[in-house]
């Protein structure tokens, strides 16, 4: 047996150990903030090693840790692109004053990234605003919602080539999800009960290979 195969056998056996430890009480697990301290390298090394030692014996904590470090690393990488010298994408203009530079630089130039480029406002009822949002092949194009006789709304979007399904999400002004569903068609009926307040809706095209294409979040509901 080679050293490599030997290590593979050891790892496989260790995997068995981890599986055998579930389920377990989490009261002895480190606090979520301790996991963040490891990621941010805060506190003394011995404490961080102790936390890591627990993580490597507790699958539930390791799942927590992987979630947290994915969040941290993703945000850092997204922010790093900003400081990499990319030109600013947006300016926020207040009143008639000088343009205010938006601190998040354009993320559009990075290859393979999804950018929502639609402009204009979609509102309820349809017809009072431009009904079609501009987009490109990297964007799910939302169409103007159609009111239904029962008081609900028909949400529609342009089909994305190759999409296996679409995730429809509708959330209120506080960011709470009102409706979330996955459909195969490029329409979704928002029930009457949900259309009594100002909402935002967005659609994500789901491809079989895990690739996703997002729409903008647009408004639907009473003015």
């Amino acid at each position, binding site marked *: 047996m080679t050293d490599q195969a030997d290590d593979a*056998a050891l790892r496989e056996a260790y995997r068995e150990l981890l599986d055998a430890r579930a389920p377990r009480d989490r009261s002895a697990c480190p606090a979520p903030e301790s996991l963040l301290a490891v990621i941010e390298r805060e506190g003394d090394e011995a404490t961080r090693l102790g936390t890591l030692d627990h993580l490597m014996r507790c699958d539930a904590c390791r799942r927590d840790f992987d979630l947290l470090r994915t969040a941290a690393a993703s945000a850092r990488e997204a922010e790093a692109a900003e400081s990499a010298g990319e030109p600013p994408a947006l300016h926020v203009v207040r009143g008639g004053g000088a343009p205010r530079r938006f601190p998040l630089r354009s993320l559009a130039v990075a290859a393979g990234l999804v950018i929502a480029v639609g402009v204009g406002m979609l509102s309820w009822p349809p017809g009072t605003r431009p009904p079609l949002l501009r987009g490109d092949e990297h964007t799910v194009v939302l169409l103007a919602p159609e009111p239904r006789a029962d008081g609900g709304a028909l949400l529609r979007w342009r089909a994305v080539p190759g999409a296996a399904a679409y995730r429809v999400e509708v959330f209120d002004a506080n960011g709470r999800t009102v409706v979330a569903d996955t459909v195969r068609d490029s329409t979704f009926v928002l029930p009457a009960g949900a259309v009594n307040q100002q909402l935002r809706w967005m659609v994500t095209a789901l491809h079989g290979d895990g690739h996703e294409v997002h729409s903008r979040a647009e408004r639907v509901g009473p003015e």
Partner: protein
Amino acid sequence: MTAEHDTLSRAIESTLARFAGVVRVVATRYRLSPADRDDLVQEVRVRLWRALERERIEALPASYLYRTATSAALDLIRRRRTTREDSLDEMDPSELRLAVTTANPEQRAQLSDLALRIERAIELIPESRRPVVRMYLAGYGSAEIGELMGWTEAKARNLLYRGLADLRQRLEEAGVTPSSHD
């Protein structure tokens, strides 16, 4: 709705799209499940929109995404732990006693001899080297260990080498040789 608001909302959407794209890559790197990945993106999406709608922010500060993403993940973890504790509360006391046992006896009985010997061997190696050895056995390489601890890869490799040497020595003392692992 002002043009300014609309401009900011487009910026948030762009940020979210970029963040979601990066998360997809990083989640694969860190072996995060698709469900956890989606939960994270959704939670960050909600928080950014909430900031726009409720806090009436004018622009996103440079570190806003990092703070938002990490606090969203912390909240997801707390929620997950609370849900799990709730489910434990609903269990029959006899079931609960089983649940808090470190290892499930039935599963333990099915553990391979090698797994049991590894468990014992790790407890015998110096405490300072156990985390590195456990990380390696859990699938982490020396570069990732170094990154997590803020060590150079050379230092991580050196500590790992010593830790694994300890482990192999303990295993050999327990009668486990490389050829007997098959």
